[in-house]
């Protein structure tokens, strides 16, 4: 059965800390891995990763994919209270033309002032 596992499930840090969120997957027809930030209801797109070893970076956030070991990490440096959210990892299951996203349960990040 296809699955995506995120760890930790929750994390509490203080402003200025650096955090690493983990995502491992077992998906039969892997096409790409996506990270989303969910603050209220709508997941907001962060990164899409398709190739191993190529870091994607946006401000204080960065992510990398390892297709051999089947995992990805999302790093956030110098965390701010506005980073508090649920971070979702999803793998695009490619069957036919386009596929559906298989999500992990998310990591709930709380950044305290």
């Amino acid at each position: 059965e296809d699955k995506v596992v995120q760890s930790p499930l929750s994390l509490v840090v203080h402003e200025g800390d650096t955090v690493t969120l983990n995502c491992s997957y077992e998906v039969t027809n892997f096409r790409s891995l996506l990270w989303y930030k969910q603050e209220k209801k709508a997941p907001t797109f962060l990164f899409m990763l398709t190739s191993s070893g190529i870091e994607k970076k946006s401000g204080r956030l960065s992510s990398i994919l390892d297709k051999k070991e089947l995992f990805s990490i999302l790093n956030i440096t110098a965390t701010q209270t506005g980073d508090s959210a649920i971070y979702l990892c999803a793998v695009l299951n490619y069957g036919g033309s386009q596929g559906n996203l298989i999500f992990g349960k998310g990591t709930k990040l709380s950044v305290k002032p």
Partner: protein
Amino acid sequence: GAGVSQTPSNKVTEKGKYVELRCDPISGHTALYWYRQSLGQGPEFLIYFQGTGAADDSGLPNDRFFAVRPEGSVSTLKIQRTERGDSAVYLCASSYGLAGPQGDTQYFGPGTRLTVL
């Protein structure tokens, strides 16, 4: 441009009633997806449209759930004889649907929180 919009934002109904949830995708996106998210869980796939047709409806839990996209843009998710277990946030997403990586990114709407009493 405008993002994915969903209406209503909240819907409270009684067990056994019929509900319709609407999704308006990003203009130009040919692929549209419905997901359901229960508390403490990641979104779970329900159905995917490419244009007007349902390309994959394998995630629909049973025949009480049905979705349409008659003109290839707006989609409606319909739930008959609602049950308390249907309570969740229903998320809609859209993408370009191109045969390439740039079509892979799905952009989500704010969701509809459905509560069945």
